[in-house]
């Protein structure tokens, strides 16, 4: 196997020259260890993601949803992975790779803290020092995740520039890397960034789809009709889709439709994060991909009720697969995502991450009792439950409170 640097015209390596040697070194390590299992790297990775991470995760029939949507709905339970999201697949893979490469230090950016906590856990597990960059604003919004990173002995470095969110944290991490590339590995948190990150991150996550394929065939003797995953950067998405790209399953990538799809060009603000469905080609954070940008090419501020989807770019491979017509991009707005969050929690006893809830919002939109779309979904559908919702409880309660949702539980119990 050789390293994929581009996906059609997307991808590439648009980074400062100072990073290029590190990226070449990484490309080489990726090829040797990941693609060719040199020194048994992949064996060790598979062992650790099993014993430390908890793989395989189950494929569960969703009884109530199957009834509601009158088709077989299955849940891929990545929410049960250690740390509570698919993120660990990649974080553990990259930290282990850094160790094989002889790196002495790990850095990563984080927005909501999911990738940061996964990286901190992996670094603690593999005994490497770790520093996580996180916007000041995010730090104050995501206390529990900051606690978790600190408890795993990771430094958490506040980023005070700009709005103090993910975009700034990514830029700051790249700056650290530009300074320290020789001893440090930068663990990127999705299938974004310069090659070889998009392909490598996908490869660490592709175990998701491989398991689905095996688990589904054990029951049905054929692959699922449709596979659905939410998409921010797109790592859970490609991890879920990869095993099916060469087959016939319909692949749906569900983005955050936010509060509206209408961009405020003047303010530089997109009230959504649907770069795959509405964005245009451009270059961001090291790769050519689909972006939310204004007419001049400045990156728009994206928005979503779910911070893990709140990103103006998307993985170049997904952009390519959308152009090819292989992946169907779609999106679900904040309200529908919250309703889907409550539905899954109440009907299946699985409290999903808000990111994940978008995937279920799509199901409701195309197959629910009040569907407005005339897409006919196949008889069997697998939805990736990319993470659990524990991190989102306060946000969900707050956002639910602001709205008049059909199925919101009251939180009156606290009033006494």
């Amino acid at each position, binding site marked *: 196997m050789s390293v994929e640097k581009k996906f059609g015209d997307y991808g*590439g*390596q*648009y*980074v*400062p*020259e*100072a990073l*290029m*040697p*590190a990226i*070449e070194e990484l490309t080489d390590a990726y090829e040797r260890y990941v693609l060719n299992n040199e020194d048994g790297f992949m064996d060790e990775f598979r062992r650790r993601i099993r014993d430390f991470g908890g793989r395989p995760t189950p494929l569960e029939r969703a009884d109530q949803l199957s009834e509601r949507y009158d088709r077989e709905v299955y849940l891929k339970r990545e929410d049960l992975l250690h740390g509570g999201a698919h993120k660990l697949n990649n974080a553990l893979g990259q930290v282990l790779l850094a160790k094989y490469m002889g790196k002495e230090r790990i850095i990563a950016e984080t927005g909501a803290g999911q990738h940061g906590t996964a990286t901190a856990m992996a670094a603690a597990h593999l005994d490497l020092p770790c520093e996580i960059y996180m916007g000041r604003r995010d730090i104050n919004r995501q206390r529990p995740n900051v606690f978790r990173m600190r408890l795993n002995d990771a430094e958490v470095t506040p980023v005070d*520039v*700009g709005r103090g969110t993910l*975009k700034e944290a*990514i*830029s700051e991490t*790249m*700056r650290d890397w*530009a*300074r*320290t*590339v*020789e001893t440090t590995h930068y663990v990127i948190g999705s299938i974004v960034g310069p090659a070889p990150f998009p392909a490598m991150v996908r490869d660490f996550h592709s175990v998701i789809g491989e398991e689905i394929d095996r688990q589904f065939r054990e029951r049905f003797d054929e692959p699922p009709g449709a596979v659905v995953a939410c998409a921010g950067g797109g790592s859970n998405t490609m991890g879920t889709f990869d095993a099916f790209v060469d087959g016939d399953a319909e692949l749906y990538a569900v983005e955050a439709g936010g509060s509206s799809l209408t961009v405020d060009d003047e303010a*530089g603000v997109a009230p959504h994060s649907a770069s795959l469905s509405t964005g245009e080609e*451009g*270059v*961001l*954070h*090291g790769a050519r991909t689909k*972006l939310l*940008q204004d*007419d*001049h*090419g*400045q*990156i728009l501020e994206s928005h979503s009720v779910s911070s893990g989807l709140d990103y103006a770019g998307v993985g170049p491979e997904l952009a390519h697969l959308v152009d090819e017509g292989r992946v169907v991009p779609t999106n679900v707005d904040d309200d529908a995502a919250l309703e889907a969050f409550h539905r899954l929690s109440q009907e299946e006893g699985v409290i999903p991450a808000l990111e994940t809830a978008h995937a279920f919002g799509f199901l409701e939109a195309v197959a629910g009792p009040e569907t407005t779309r005339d897409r006919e979904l196949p008889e069997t559908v697998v939805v990736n439950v990319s993470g659990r919702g524990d991190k989102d409880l306060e946000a969900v309660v707050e956002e639910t409170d602001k709205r008049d949702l059909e199925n919101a539980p009251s939180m009156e119990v606290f009033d006494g």
Partner: protein
Amino acid sequence: MSDAAGLAAAFEEPAFVPYLAAGDPDVEASLEYVEALARGGADAIELGLPFSEPIAEGPTIQQAVVRSLEGGMTPERFFEFVEALDVDVPLVCMTYYNLIYQYGDGEPVVPFVERAAEVGLEGFVVPDLPAEEADRLRAACDEFGLDLVFIVAPTTRGDRLAAIVERVSGYLYVQARLGVTGARSDVSGRTAESLDRLAEQAAADIPKAVGFGISSGEQAAEVVAAGADGVIVGSALVDIVAQGHADDDPPGVVADRLEAKARELKQGALAGAQRPPRPEGT
């Protein structure tokens, strides 16, 4: 290496190449500041066209970018800014690839280069465009007679260096240290190392300007003494703009400070050329 000769001409004597973000903190003051640098002895000027995600910049220039964007800077206004400037040294546009790529209609990249040529820019530095991805921009530059400057990092070696040297024109931007832009008080030992390495390459006959962290005349002198053909100074100048803005100083006063700083740096560069060359291999 392209044969466009425009920028290379600025390095006939040890050159001082300042950087400012165009439109920082507003268009009018910024015009005055750039002209002050020219008066202070700049041999060429790098003008930043601000991008919303300046991944190669340190905090100083990041903040400048934010100020300029908040002031309404756009690519088109940037070109108008260049047209409005009254200076007679070559001007280089420093920006990120997405802005070049998105500009205008039709074949990407070409409209931006064409317009740049029209307003009299002499070349580009694009920190997030590695040589491997640069063929389209290189071709457009050739078509319109502009230079394309590349940055060489302390870690750049072998094939990568060759790929850069093959595509560069104007000058090589030699990055003095790992990391991002920002003024520092020491000059890295790696500068000398890099210059030695470059000297050994086919890069011998293109001017080498050292940047990243230079903030004083003395540093400029050291760098030139170490073999550089010029110094690039950004954050130290942007600091002066930022300070003046924070203190609400009149633009004229800030411009005078910039001119004085420019003079110091230019003198340093010239003085460096008088120093004994470094002993081999240090």
